[in-house]
């Protein structure tokens, strides 16, 4: 019985091993399909290079240090942009989730800006900050921040009314209700929101790097396109997917570690 808990993700009766086995076989199955299609020469290699060619290309890029350099700069940018966005969104989201005055002042504005397409900010950010790292961070920020604020606001609003009433019956001052009850109660859900928004941050980083950059994973994809090096494009797409999957799994793992509260596992 844990009616006050947010429901934890369950693997519908599967053991962890079974779950991983099923997930892995889907990946393997798709890879085999990819290999079969290219081996049977159903598609021109320019449009869909064979997996072997992509892996060879990736190996070359890794050996030359290019891959690591591109990954390094992109990971730095996304971490910086995401952390800045989170650092600003967290206090604002908590305030507008808890206090109606702040909600009235900020929520409609955030909603308004949220609906402006992030890509439409690209020209403006280039005018403002050139093609520096700052421009990438700004795009990641614009793409992530406004969504984060609204998600965090909702997380804070979902804190059970009775938890807050408990604090009131104990005559806790408002700031302690906020720090001792509201924050710890909303934290697991906020962590999940951050995990989801980190996925979006990746998208906006690559968009920014595709349009105007001189380094990074997105930049390498654009240059590869100029030379019709689709094997490089596919290789980098795989890398992006793997990085996304890895960060998501890491966030999930850390979330379970931080917020298990003695759950039997």
């Amino acid at each position, binding site marked *: 019985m844990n009616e*006050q*808990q947010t429901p934890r993700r369950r693997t519908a009766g599967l053991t962890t091993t079974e779950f991983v086995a099923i997930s892995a076989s889907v990946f393997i199955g798709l890879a085999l399909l990819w290999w079969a299609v290219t081996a049977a020469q159903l598609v021109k290699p320019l449009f869909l290079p064979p997996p072997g060619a992509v892996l060879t290309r990736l190996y070359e890029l890794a050996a030359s240090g290019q891959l690591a350099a591109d990954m390094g700069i992109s990971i730095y940018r996304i971490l910086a942009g995401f952390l800045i966005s989170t650092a600003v969104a967290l206090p604002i989201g908590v305030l507008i989730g808890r206090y109606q005055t702040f909600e009235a002042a900020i929520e409609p504005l955030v909603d308004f800006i949220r609906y402006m397409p992030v890509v439409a900010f690209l020209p403006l950010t280039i005018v403002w900050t050139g093609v520096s790292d700052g421009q990438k961070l700004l795009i990641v920020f614009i793409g992530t921040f406004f969504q984060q604020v609204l998600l965090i606001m909702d997380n804070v609003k979902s804190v059970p009314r009775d938890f807050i009433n408990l*604090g009131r019956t*104990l*005559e806790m001052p408002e700031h302690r209700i906020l720090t001792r*009850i509201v924050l710890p109660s909303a934290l697991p859900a906020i962590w999940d929101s951050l995990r989801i928004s980190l996925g979006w941050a990746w998208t906006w980083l690559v968009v920014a790097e595709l349009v105007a950059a001189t380094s990074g994973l997105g930049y390498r994809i654009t240059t590869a396109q100029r030379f019709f090096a689709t094997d490089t494009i596919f290789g980098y797409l795989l890398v992006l997917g793997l990085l996304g999957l890895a960060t998501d799994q890491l966030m999930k793992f850390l979330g379970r570690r931080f917020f298990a509260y*003695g*759950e039997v596992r």
Partner: protein
Amino acid sequence: MALPTLSIAGLGKTYAGRGNPVEALCGVNLDVGHNEFVALVGTSGCGKSTLLSIAAGLEAQTDGRIEIDGQPIVAPGRDRGVVFQSYTLLPWLTALGNVEFALIAAGKSSADARTIAYEHLKLVGLTNFARAYPQQLSGGMKQRVAIARALSYRPQILLMDEPFGALDALTRHHMQELLTRIWERDRTTVLFITHDVEEAVYLADRVAVMSNRPGRVKEIIRIDLPRPRRYEMLGTLRFQELQKQVLDCIRAESIEAEGLAEVLG
């Protein structure tokens, strides 16, 4: 006669609502004497939880007066211990931590809080579960922790809002026996809300029956069963008589509330 601990006179509560105001309580009169256990029974939606909420200071009445030891209730306070139906244990704290939480809020040092919290877990028989987190506890155990927490800071009165309502019948009986034992030791004044007639008769010195909305106290029945109350008393003739008396009083209300007058009236 000494001043009652809780004194309610002509209490009314009307919710503004959109266009059509809802009158939840109208002219409620009830005194709960010092060291007295009063059970308030009523059909669902009769306003009994609203009444408790006003007594807790979480809501304001729109009419009449409500006083604790002669002082009007205007805000929540630690002179009243509240036990909510939803157990409201903070999931990130252990059983011991949840009791300590209230004691720290009440200004105890952490050493004192630990000692007192432990004593109160002992009172409800949960010392073996002091280090357990709420989601490792059964519903009955959680509510025992909540009772320990509400008693720990020595309130003038315990306000209990259908505390056993979410428990299965067997556990509910154990909880009633436990509460009776605890109460007969300290005789902390209790206002206990329930819709379970047997529970009310078993626990209380007096049972106040509420009318349907707008709720008011329709009748007060003195329970002259001897103390200590024991489980075996449930089978006695006097218990059955009293139970029947309360049931007769509430039956008409319940039939009306459920819209069954046509069939059962």
